[in-house]
């Protein structure tokens, strides 16, 4: 097994694309090292991307934010402007693992590990975030939800690296929120996670919304029907009830030890409703 820690993106993509065996990218290592320790993966090459400056920075860009894929959850939580602009995204990152884990874990790793239950992903999808992917053949900018294709599987080609997340500029009177259900407060995996991002107008009508749900399908679901239940309403009780049923209807969960199908479907609706209320509150409106 070879360990490399290049300081440029070019060098990293070159290493990854020329490795004939199994290569893995190391960011915080909170998934990779656990998998290696359990004997689930034995990479021939590990490319540590933490020495690449672009991947370690949070910068304001086009009235939005660009977040390096190897920024830690703790660093996002400490970034005051980011946290005030995108509280839902930041609170999702701050639910990964535990306080200690968040000192290492990164949004890039959380996305590329491709767990259907990853906490940061529904919030990013709801936020309308895009990622910049760089490979030897160039750069592409794609929506976050196009990265994961199934549990543990991504659309990334050999040698490609997720470099950064772009959180777009957003109108005033916008708010986002992420809620998840776990039996245990920390060090647990979401039974269901829901991200809601919305914009209200001066009259208190919801004019834009995105709803994403995790852990209820092979990948995180962006649910336009749930968003439609909010848009054009004052996000009152009847709209919230519509939202809940739309969110529940979109779920295609499995039965497992963490939750039965029926339970997950019901909880997805409840969390969507509660997250929407928080998002509205954050958008500076009262219900």
């Amino acid at each position, binding site marked *: 097994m070879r360990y490399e820690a290049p300081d440029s993106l070019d060098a990293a993509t070159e290493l990854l694309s020329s490795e004939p065996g199994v290569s893995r990218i190391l960011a915080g290592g909170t998934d990779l090292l656990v998998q290696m320790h359990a004997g689930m993966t034995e990479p021939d090459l590990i490319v540590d991307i933490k020495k690449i400056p672009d991947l370690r920075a949070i910068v304001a860009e086009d009235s939005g934010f660009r977040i390096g894929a190897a920024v830690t959850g703790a660093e996002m939580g400490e970034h005051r402007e980011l946290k005030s602009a995108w509280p839902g995204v930041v609170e999702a990152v701050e639910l990964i693992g535990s306080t200690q884990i968040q000192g290492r874990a990164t949004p890039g790793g959380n996305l590329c590990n491709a767990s259907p239950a990853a906490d940061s992903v529904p919030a990013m999808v709801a936020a309308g975030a895009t990622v910049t992917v760089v490979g030897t053949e160039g750069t592409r900018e794609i929506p976050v939800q196009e990265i994961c294709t199934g549990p543990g599987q991504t659309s990334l080609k050999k040698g490609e690296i997720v470099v950064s997340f772009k959180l777009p500029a957003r109108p005033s009177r916008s708010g986002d929120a992420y809620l998840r259900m776990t039996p245990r*407060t920390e060090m647990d995996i979401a039974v269901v996670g829901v991200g809601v991002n919305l914009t209200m107008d001066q009259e208190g009508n919801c004019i834009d919304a995105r709803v994403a749900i995790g852990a209820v399908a092979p990948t995180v679901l962006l649910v336009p029907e749930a968003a439609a239940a909010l848009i054009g309403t004052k996000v009152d009780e009847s709209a919230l009830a519509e939202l809940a049923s739309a969110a529940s209807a979109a779920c295609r969960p499995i039965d497992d030890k963490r939750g039965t199908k029926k*339970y997950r479907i019901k909880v997805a609706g409840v969390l969507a409703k509660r997250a929407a209320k928080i998002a509205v509150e954050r958008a500076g409106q009262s219900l």
Partner: protein
Amino acid sequence: MSKELHVIGKASRKVGVMQKVSGQTVYAGDISLPRMLYCKILRSIHPYARIKSIDSREAEALPGVMAVMNGKDSPKKFGIMLRRGDDEVLAIDKTRFVGDSVAAVAALDEETAEEALKLIHVDYEVLEPVMSIAEGTVPPNGEPIHDYAELGNIHKRVSLEFGEMEAGFAKADLIQEDIFYYEGNTHLAMEEHATVAHYEADGKLTIWSSTQNPHYLHKAVANVFDMPPSRIRIIAPPTGGGFGGKVDPLNHEMVVSKLSMMTGRPVKITLTREEVFYAHRGRHPVLMKVKTGVKKDGSITAMDFKSFLDGGGYGSLGVATVYYTGALQTVTYNIPNYKFQGARIVTNKPPCGPKRGHGTPQPRFAVEVQLDKIAEKLGINPLDIRLNHLTRPFTKTANHLSITTTGLRECIEAVEKRSNFREQYGNLPLGKGLGLACGSYITGAGFPIYWNEMPHSGVQIQIDRGGGVTVFCGSTDIGQGSDSVLAYIVAEELGVTVDDISIVTADTSLTPVDLGSYSSRVTLMTGNAAIDAARKLRTLLFETAAKEFGVPLESLDARDNVVFCPENENCSISFPDLVVKAESEHGTLGSVGSYAPPPSTLGGKYKGAGVGPTPAYTYSAAVVLVDVDLETAELKVEKIWIAHDVGKAINPLLVQGQVEGSVYMGLGEAMMEEQVFRRGLHKTPSLLDYKSPTFLETPDIETILIETNDPNGPYGAKEAGQGPLLPIMPAVANAVYDAVGVRIDEIPIHPQKIFKAMRDKEKGKEGRYGPKGVPEIPFPDPIRVESQWGQRADQESSR
């Protein structure tokens, strides 16, 4: 001897704690010897299989591998039940669960040993596994898992009847029948088991091991290797938590011993966390049926209790566990007529054994939840159905157990007062609920695991010429503070400070036998032995001082390293000076003391009467406040009030620690912990996947200690390590009912179960989640014994 206590009863620092918090404590896993080899064990990938052949030639040829062994190299069986043990050093012809041990390697380093495991080729014939109580109680398809089982895969059946059941039920105004299930869970001690064995050229074997029971391990090792015990020395270094998981002698301890004999070098093994899940010996899953007759006032006229235990692949202490699921129901409330039938089933899962509360949390859950159901039907407050029918001090139970002191009334009253249960119960807003439950537990098993008439605990004290005092005892400090108890008691009796005392424990060559850290026996038994030894020395020292001062011996006292006469300030001598004078007068200073439970506490004479008796029962009561989310059924425990009758707190701070630890462990069992298997495979053998609460889920715990000064306890002390766990699980279940009106008759209480019961209730169905029936199996005719309920128990002091 009644005198003012200077050390006992005071909050003070735990012995050895500074080393622990500064990382200096040497655990078994820290031990490293010159020329030491590392051992790894190859484990079965099948839940049930016959081993057709093992080819380890490739492994043996790997550079760095010093020895490879399999079951045929050490075929003698062993176990905590000694002669009845069914544990194999390594599987002999069958593997009985995924993780069962098949072969072992000793190599120069762990990596090489692991590499070598991959080169061992095992040819298995896969057999059809039995994975549940239901599958184990029907006639087996193939061959039974063990040939000694009584009937198919039913390992052991017990059937006992005390008093007149028919007449008892005939007197009842209400007969309540319920079925409960309690899922299995594991100990989760912080320290993974580690063992170093060193077989030296003189034919002597030394074993350092994380064990709760050096004495039983000593016997087992001698038996497995047909060695005289005099050639074997077992040392238990400070153990990083046990909770029952290190009670059994375990096969890895035998494996490294054998490999050391084969190689002539020390051999070490440290189990991984995953392997600890396979070593297990944890809580038995138990399915229970309880039929209870009560009068309108809530008094019980008869109880018929049935339990079915899922034992896993080996016997462990399981026979005792079956009895324990039936033994202590009678100790808390008046039950004049009582019947118990229990069966332990062998399944292809990691073996179950003793875990904190050993066989009693499951029936306690059933009894306490059922009492609440009865109370509701009769319109009685849950407090009163308990308070009005408590067993009385110094009486016997239906099954011939002798109760000495009981502080259960004070316990219930204390938690009622703090929680305001009487006013709040039934009156909190929807979603908030209070639950009450009680429990009782033994302070040490009345009988040793093998029959003998020797002391259960021995203590030896030596005083050096500088005034230092060394206490020797076979007891094993697993974190509960047993070393501290010895130090406090000897300090109290000799009038020296705790810091002047050195403790040498858990070494079969250096220390007199103490049976081990199980059954909550250590404080009472080593404590009494320590008092016995210390008072002999105290008398010797006081004789010298009395002569020196020309005062009567009785007028002397000792504290803070000074022996003095309170009435005469001129009579005072420092402890070191007195030691010099005493040794000059008496010769080398030392003494021994011992303890065995008094015969009056040893219970009945019927077959099976050996499980349940103890010198003293403890009592606990808890009130739990919960919040249940009305939409998601998420369960949060917001507050716990717990009162425990500890007899006398030797160190209230350590007792509080034991109580809080019990509450925490009980909450884990109540809310989330469980062993889950799929296709024979343990689904969650890691700290990440096996969900146990963190401090974030642990609510504010208010601990109240009740002191009843038991005549059999040292200074009146009883146990604190296990009893306080018992009320937690039923109190949570009862609180959930108060919060949302559904009965969860199954542990753990997951939100999904509450959710399902709430949905059912909305649909007009019974708002209950739990098992629907129990298997029909033939039980032997019960052993019928006259009930001794309410008879006077002899009040005989142990000293």
